[in-house]
């Protein structure tokens, strides 16, 4: 496929890229009015990208032919929420100094241009992941997603975020090295980097050892993006170190990219590959006639899923910092979604299609996750400078305020800040999977798809973990709703950025309102989760009629 053909699929990305270039320059203008255009331009870019994605071609010659529009639209949508939330994350002190005339504009001291540019870069990377048709493309897209986030973490706050950024960067490099190694072995095993080519190779020649090792390493390495065990270590430290809006960004954007990449990688052998009993009774991996992923890949993902949700949940129990709780819960949610990847497209119906479940869950998780982090981002308390371990009082800060941090800080929030309190309650309940909120709508198909795929033990693990998760999510519900404000800690005050509460309220509202549109969203995600029949398939598991005939 030539570049001309490819361009029609990546108009959203191109739009985003252009906006990035514009933002990068605008943010460095000495004029405050122009600098302030960064955020609107980003918003416009996201809207345009979303529209382009909708208007773009519906079907692409890929394993997941309808994935692109859906993935790009949810990225643009949740990206808009994140954009609102990111308001004021960087340059808050610098801008106030300039505004009060104590300093002159110095482009070297401000980060606004880079921050918003990287924000768009990262989202562009996610969209490119969805468009990827080649291993190299996929790698570059994944790194385009991740590299900006390293910077975003580092510049988001003073002090702790630097340590978090460094950790994130080095560990991210290790993760990237792992899946790059995997990609290299896939190339070595199949002789091509083209995803369709690899699929064809697998279909015709089976999976040789090198390619299999490549698959496993790729999945394990991409595990870093979705914070899956054993690549999860960085998560709590980085989320805690970064400012809450950036944490929200981290919990959604690289995770989405990772899941899209894992879907693409898993679709190389396909879900119709797994072990089947041959005529001689011996069970072996079949050539497209089986009923699951190749056994080794399935087992890897299985162990990753089970460990990820368990580790995430049990560690969250010990935390007192809301951000760390949410970080561990983010790990756990990746574990849940891996169940959908393992299940794969069992049937055409939404509840039978694990990929559709994952795609839907990504949207649900993005929305409710933004809500919880937004509450943290919207409130700050004074006198918390000591909490920020590395923060040196430079005298430049406009009063030492920090984000609210612990569960204690959330106490009585429903009375002191009702909007924030209820957002926390709703989003936490939704994350818990409390019916009938959006989180429940998201989690339910993971169960059904898992059952449909016959992964009963994993579904049981999923169920147990959902119960464990209730322990700490209910803490987040009970503290604002039932408890009295803690007299010991200083009262929380709202941050002076009206966009942040807007993001919080939009998320909370979405958790409720999107339930009403769940039917439409499920239909769209079911379509996005459709896979084509692998070459050589005699009986497809989840192929829809419209694309079954397509053959690369």
């Amino acid at each position, binding site marked *: 496929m030539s570049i001309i053909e490819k361009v029609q699929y990546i108009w959203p990305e191109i739009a985003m890229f252009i906006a990035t270039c514009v933002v990068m320059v605008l943010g460095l203008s000495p004029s405050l009015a122009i600098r302030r255009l960064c955020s609107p331009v980003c918003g416009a870019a996201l809207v345009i990208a979303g529209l382009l994605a909708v208007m773009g071609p519906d079907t692409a010659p890929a394993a997941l032919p309808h994935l692109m529009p859906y993935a790009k639209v949810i990225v643009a949508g949740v990206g808009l929420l994140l954009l609102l939330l990111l308001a004021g994350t960087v340059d808050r002190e610098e801008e106030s100094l300039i505004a009060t005339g104590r300093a002159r504009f110095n482009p070297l001291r401000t980060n606004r241009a880079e921050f918003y540019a990287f924000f768009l870069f990262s989202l562009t990377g996610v969209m490119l992941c969805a468009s990827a048709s080649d291993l190299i493309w996929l790698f570059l897209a994944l790194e385009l997603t991740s590299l900006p986030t390293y910077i975003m973490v580092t510049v988001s706050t003073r002090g702790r975020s630097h340590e978090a950024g460094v950790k994130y960067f080095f560990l991210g490099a290790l*993760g990237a090295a792992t899946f790059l190694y995997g990609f290299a072995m896939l190339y070595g095993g199949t002789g091509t980097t083209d995803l369709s080519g690899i699929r064809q190779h697998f279909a015709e020649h089976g999976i040789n050892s090198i390619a299999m090792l490549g698959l496993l390493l790729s999945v394990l*390495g991409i595990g*870093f993006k979705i914070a899956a065990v054993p690549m999860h270590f960085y998560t709590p430290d980085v989320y805690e170190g970064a400012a809450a809006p950036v944490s929200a960004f981290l919990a959604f954007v690289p995770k989405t990219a990772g899941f899209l990449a894992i879907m693409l990688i898993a679709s190389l052998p396909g879900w119709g590959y797994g072990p089947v009993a041959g005529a001689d009774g011996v069970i072996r991996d079949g050539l497209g006639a089986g009923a699951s992923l190749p056994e080794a890949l399935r087992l890897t993902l299985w*162990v990753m899923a089970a460990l990820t949700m368990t580790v995430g949940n049990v560690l969250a129990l010990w935390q007192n910092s809301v951000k760390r709780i949410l970080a561990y819960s983010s790990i756990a949610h990746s574990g849940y979604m891996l169940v959908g990847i393992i299940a794969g497209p069992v049937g055409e119906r939404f509840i039978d299609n694990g990929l559709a479940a994952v795609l839907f869950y990504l949207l649900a998780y993005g929305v409710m996750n933004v809500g919880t982090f937004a509450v943290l981002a919207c409130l700050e308390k004074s006198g918390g400078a000591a909490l920020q371990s590395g923060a040196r009082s430079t005298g430049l800060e406009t009063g030492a305020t920090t984000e609210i941090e612990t569960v204690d800080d959330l106490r009585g929030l429903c009375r002191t800040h009702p909007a924030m309190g209820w957002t926390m309650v709703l989003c936490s309940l939704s994350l818990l999977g409390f019916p009938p909120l959006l989180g429940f709508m998201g989690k339910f198909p993971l169960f059904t798809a898992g059952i449909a795929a016959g992964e009963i033990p994993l579904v049981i693990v999923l169920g147990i973990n959902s119960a464990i998760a209730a322990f700490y999510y209910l803490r987040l519900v009970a503290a604002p709703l039932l408890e009295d404000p803690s007299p010991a800690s200083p009262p929380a005050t709202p941050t002076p950025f009206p966009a942040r509460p807007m993001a919080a309220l939009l998320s909370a509202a979405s958790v409720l309102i999107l339930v009403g549109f769940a039917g439409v969203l499920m239909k769209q995600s079911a379509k996005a989760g459709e896979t084509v029949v692998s070459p050589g398939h005699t009986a497809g598991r989840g192929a829809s009629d419209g694309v079954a005939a397509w053959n690369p």
Partner: protein
Amino acid sequence: MIGVAPALNGVIGALAQEGPAHAATAAGPAWAALIPALPLLGVVLCTLCAVFRVKNRLPAVLTVACLAGAFGLTVWMFLTTGHGTAVTTSLDWIRFHAAPGHEFVSSWGFFIDPLTCLWMLFVTGLATLIAIYAGEYMAGDAGAGYSRFFAAFNLFVFSMACLVMADSLVLLFLGWEGVGLCSYLLIGYFYKRPAAVAAAKKAFIMNRIGDVGLMMGITSTWVVFGTVEYAPIFDMISRGVDGAGNALPEWAGWVIPSLFTIGAFGKSAQLFLYVWLPDAMEGPTPVSALIHAATMVTAGVYLIARMYPMYVLDGTHWVLTLIAWSGAITALWSATIGMAQFDIKRIMAYSTVSQLGYMFAGLGVLTTTGAAFHVFTHAFFKATLFLCCGAVMHGFAGQLDLRRVSGLWSMRGWAVVTIAMLVGCLNLAGFPFTAGFFSKDMIIAECYVTPGMAPVGWVLLLTAGLTAYYTFRVFFRVFVGPAEFEPGDEAHAHGPAGDDHGHAAGAGTPSSVDSTDHSHGFHPHAPGLAINFVLGLLAVLSLAAAATYFVGGEHGWVGEMVHHSTAGVSGAALPGGGAVHADLETGAPGFLGYNPHAVMYYVSAAVGLIGILIAAFLHGPRGVGGLLIGSRRHAATSRADALLPVLGPVARGAQHKWYVDEVYDFLIIRPIWVIAHLFHLFDKLIVDGLVGLAGWLPRGMGGAIRPTQSGHLHGYAVGMAGGVAVLLLVVLLVAW
């Protein structure tokens, strides 16, 4: 009513064919529903009194009015119904489809036949009188528990009316449970006293054991007959078919009666289940008189009498034989305990158990008439006796120990009580020509008529002697002789005495207190007008009950009533034909070769007199009061004290109620307690432990892997690389 009509017609037809026993059946009067409704109104009114904190005796007045109205209606019902059988349906109560084409129906309807009338007459009549009595007796509680007392009292009468008048077993069960509840509420009336609470609990639990039997009996009836309504059931029994029209299964003839009998044993304090009744004396005395002597405890007798056609289904009658024997044993057993007690109310309680034993024996030997007659007479004289005891208790501040009160006759204002007591005692002792004499006679005589039941007769005869002894022991000790008393502990604290009278008595060294010892400043107050009026009236009624023996048919008025009810035992009604009773002409067993019916008058009169004389000799005071053979000079001592060392363990055993409570405690309560504690341990360690573990495990796991989150970059890097390596190794080993 419409639904019942066809079945009823069947009954009419069947009964008309079966013989003279059931002369006529008609649609009952709709106003019969007012009989239970009036006490229910009383409940509402008394509750309102409680709500509005009425401080005077208004609840008593309302109660008496309601109950008197109910009694009046009952009399009217009796007069209009006569000897016929009537069924009336007030409203559909329970109706649902149990099976295709088969409905479970239990309407709120009433089955009115002479047996119902008989029971309702003395229930409502006695309830009215006792309510009048209680109005004065409970006056000390006016404003506090007064309304509560009368609300429960009314509720009891309502429940009893449901029980007796029910036209189905389900409604009967409702009443059955209702009276149990009221019994519980009223025994525990003084809920601040642990003994009362314990007694209430005991009564309730013991009754539940019986109730299981009744409930299973009702369900079995449903299984066999497909209905729980009397009319169709009796119709089917008379035709010998079950609900489906097939021949009755053989087991129905003994399983259902056995289950009903268990229920009856519980409610009527028979055999193993009697222990709650003596303890129930913790309740206020009017309650003891009405519920635990006259009416509720006869519910078991009523149940068996009502379901009698079912009992005679089985040709071998072994259930009835069992009932007869258990009745006789209960009678003897509790009589022996009664002989050795010192608490006069408890003595009366044991005598109640004993007399109930007579009634069961009567049922067992196929004389429902005798049983019902005894219920009828017993209701009056036992109510009299209890109310007399209550008057004593009331007057002497809760004193019930017969060694501490003596010579009431010689105290001012106690004449009516003494005379009423004498009448009651004579009845209970079976003194010739009293009502108790005739009713007891009938049962004992019938024992000798029924084949194989002569030993029961002998036991009952012996018991009659013992009964006469312990009855008059009370009379001679308390009501005649030197005037002495020692007030009970209510002189110091409000509330009836605790149950420790008997225990104090067990010490055997009662302190003699002469009438000059008024150091506590206590003056006994003689009963007032209401109590005296009720006692006098009841005494008269107790005597008058004897007259009913001479009106009506062969067995008196009661016999006539029973004969025309479902409890009527006629030869034709029995599957075995008329050969149940021994044919005396053919020389079957009689009483020592004589016709029992003829000689029993003399024999039982003699036995009763001997008992009375022994009591007089052992306990009677010098002079006329002791029938000239007594020698007692003090309240506390008597000739019987000399017998104690001779009898030794027997006397001690009887005093301690044969240690039945202790045996139950050891055999049942302890093991259950131990098992309960084991289960509790299981719950605590295993169930709670598992729950706790479920909560702790995730946290523990988290704690265990928490050190991996050290915050050190190199640690994380090693973790990631190592994790990938281990995972790959595992996957390669397992799946490759």
